[in-house]
């Protein structure tokens, strides 16, 4: 179980591969891996988006992501989970969030990965501010 806040760009598929090989390191035990990647779109709520600032609450973010990771591990029969979330200045197409769950069977992997994303979206203290061609704006829940 690992969570991480990143200030620089990351490649989610390289991260999943590396974590699986070096940290999880349970070849033959996981029959199912469910991965979700959220990426920055260049269009939102009818406007072209040129850049994004992602603010977070340092400390609380980590605590919250660890809490939901532990909850997922207690609710489903999973082997491990990985969450990486970007903060700072982002460009369109940049990965924002990676959630990966390893399990023996697919139901637990699917359920736990979706649970983690829904909990992260609803309560993890991150806020997006978009740079539009003529102004910037804080994203609201209704926009997404």
């Amino acid at each position, binding site marked *: 179980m690992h969570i991480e806040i990143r200030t620089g760009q990351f490649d989610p598929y390289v991260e999943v591969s590396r974590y699986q090989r070096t940290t999880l390191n349970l070849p033959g035990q996981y029959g199912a891996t469910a991965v979700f990647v959220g990426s920055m779109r260049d269009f939102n709520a009818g406007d072209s988006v040129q850049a994004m600032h992602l603010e977070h609450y340092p400390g*609380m973010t980590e605590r919250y992501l660890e809490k939901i990771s532990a909850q997922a591990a207690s609710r489903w029969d999973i082997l491990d989970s990985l969450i990486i979330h970007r903060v700072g200045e982002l460009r369109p197409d940049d990965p*924002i969030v990676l959630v990966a769950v390893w399990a023996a069977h697919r139901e637990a992997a699917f359920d736990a990965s979706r649970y983690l*994303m829904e909990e992260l*979206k609803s309560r*993890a203290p991150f*806020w*997006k501010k978009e740079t539009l061609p003529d102004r910037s704006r804080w994203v609201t829940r209704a926009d997404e």
Partner: protein
Amino acid sequence: MSITVKYFASLREQMGTGEVRLDTSAATTVGEAWQQATDGADLPANLLMAVNMEYVDAHHKVQDGDEVAFFPPVTGG
């Protein structure tokens, strides 16, 4: 007693600061801390609150040294 009050995102911009120190009487709730910090403003309905980085509601009692945070609905992921 003394608490730290933090604001994030659009609320931080509205407040013009991300953090203030508040000297307050004992037995203060999070809702009362908000009112003291904002000179009596109503607590916005959708505002989220945390004490020492755990979500709480406005009735939660704050203790000396607590970190109390107010912020708008989150939009990560």
